[in-house]
């Protein structure tokens, strides 16, 4: 036995020496700045990086070895993926790689625009309904009504009224998303109104617009930002669904939903036509959701509990 050779000399017999324990609380590295934030919240970093890549792909689509995504080449129909056609060609001979890369533009435009528009409109409606008592009942009953129409059907019904265009798709999805944002903003406003510092501001004679601007608005931003990422993800899915069932982006513009809709008839023999846009869509939505989950954990630890 050589284990306790050193201690036997110092410790009386019968006593056991406690083994050396590692420090339980390691010194906490305080991380500051954007990089520190990203290291503390890896999901934000991963989601954000993925999303940034996709945005860059969308912006620089013309320089990434693509050809005209709408160029027909009947002689080269339904080619399997190869060195010439990375993702193959569709039934009209169009290069799917180019179409998928350009399709990123539509998805990201729709996702980001809907997130921004729905947040702004929801913010306005939520603030009014949280502050103006008589308007609250009317506005919220109206929102209840809108919310009881499933969002996709609401968007479908609105799209049926208008021509298919990216702008109309954005508007239709925005209308379908507004009720949820305004409910969120309203509930935040109602709980903030009861805070002592708001009472203090009222007592010291601050006017309502100033209270909203200084005390209420900044506190709604964190939950709104999280909500906006989820709206962005959901808008991209709804856009692809609308295009897939023929009620969305016009077929002349390559969008992921359109490419899948065109590949639908052939998918049992040429699955790659559907596969590539589907993969891109899933990765994009995943990136936005990761970003949203990470932001939620970072901005509101109470909300993150358990989820």
């Amino acid at each position, binding site marked *: 036995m050589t284990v306790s050779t050193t201690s036997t000399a110092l410790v009386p017999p019968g006593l056991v020496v406690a083994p050396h324990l590692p420090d339980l609380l390691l010194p906490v590295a305080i991380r500051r700045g954007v990089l520190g934030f990203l290291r503390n919240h890896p999901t934000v970093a991963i989601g954000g990086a993925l999303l940034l890549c996709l945005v860059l792909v969308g912006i620089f689509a013309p320089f990434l070895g693509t050809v005209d995504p709408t160029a027909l080449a009947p002689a080269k129909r339904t080619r399997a993926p190869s060195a010439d056609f990375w993702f193959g060609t569709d039934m009209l001979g169009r290069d799917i790689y180019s179409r998928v890369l350009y399709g990123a533009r539509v998805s990201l435009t729709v996702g980001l625009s809907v997130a921004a528009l729905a947040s702004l409109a929801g913010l306005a409606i939520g603030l009014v309904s949280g502050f103006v008592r008589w308007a609250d009942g009317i506005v919220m*009953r*109206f929102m*209840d*009504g*809108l919310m*009881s*129409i*499933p*969002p*996709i*059907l*609401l968007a*479908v*019904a*609105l*799209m*049926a*009224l208008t021509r298919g265009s990216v702008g109309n798709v954005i508007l239709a999805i925005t209308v379908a998303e507004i009720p949820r944002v305004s409910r969120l903003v309203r509930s935040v406003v109602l709980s903030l109104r009861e805070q002592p510092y708001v009472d203090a501001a009222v007592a010291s004679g601050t006017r309502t617009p100033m209270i909203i601007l200084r005390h209420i608005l900044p506190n709604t931003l964190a939950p709104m930002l999280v909500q906006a990422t989820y709206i962005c*993800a959901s808008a991209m*899915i*709804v856009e*692809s*669904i609308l295009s*897939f*069932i*023929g*009620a969305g982006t016009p077929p002349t513009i390559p969008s992921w939903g359109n490419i*899948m809709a065109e590949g*639908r008839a052939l*998918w*049992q023999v040429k*699955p790659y036509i*559907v*596969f590539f846009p*589907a*993969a891109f*869509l*899933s990765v994009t*939505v*995943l990136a936005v*959701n*990761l970003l949203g*989950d990470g932001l939620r954990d970072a901005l509101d630890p109470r909300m993150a*509990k*358990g*989820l």
Partner: protein
Amino acid sequence: MVSYILRRVLSTVPVMAIVALFVFSLLYIAPGDPAAVIAGDQASPADVERIREGLGLDRPFLVQFGTWLWRILHGDLGTSIFTNLPVSALIAQRIEPTLSLMVLTLVLTILVAVPLGVVAAWKAGSWVDRTIMAFAVFAFSLPVFVVGYVLAYVFALQLDWLPVQGYTPLAEGFWPWLQNLILPALALGCVYIALIARITRASMLEVLQQDYIRTARAKGLDQRSILFVHALKNAAVPIITVIGIGVALLIGGAVVTESVFAIPGLGRLTIDAILRRDYPVIQGIVLMFSFLYVLVNLMVDVTYTLVDPRIRY
């Protein structure tokens, strides 16, 4: 209890009225003049005017809304522009596959998602938990047609275990019916499973910290009865709420799933109606699904009081 249910039922009336007003406005502002369509190309402007008066289309908005609502309440959803059949008959023809798909998805989702969430909460922080939650994050990001095509490719085309597409009515036997619906239900349920597994885990984590769970452990109850009897029952209210809200996802997803798996249900009817701009049909479908959604959430609210007698209104 009875008065609560009654009040809750009454509270759906204004909501449905707003839905109806909205859906009616859709038809009202829809492009195209129904009177001109009915009159045909040969009609003179006077004929068109007469038909318009006959249909009551020259009357004020609210009067038209009133008569329209009156007909709806009597089960008359209007007539399809394209097929000239009553919309209610068209919906009745197509409702079985859609309802089958939705009910099967709901059952499958609850059977899969709730145990997953319970296990994740029980083993919180372990690799089991992290695997389930990672799956939930990924599954939540997968659009329904993506899952649908992947499942159909693997299990129908490659492995040849299940039919690729189509639908067999329940009247022709349970197994043929089920066989056709397993893949669509899985595809449709994917997002829903992720959502409910997450909320189940969150709700269970909260309950598992309660004192009565410690008491149950101290009593020597086995883990399974602690989890599924003591904890799950108390964690049920948020889970049921999300199941109710998630029905909206299910309704929207069903339209797409039916198109991927060539199921002749309401989804197909919707898509055909959009392509033909058949507004009365679109209107009828939106109205019916919204009514279904409101009804489901009404049932959810009533279920609260059954699951948790502490809830009184």
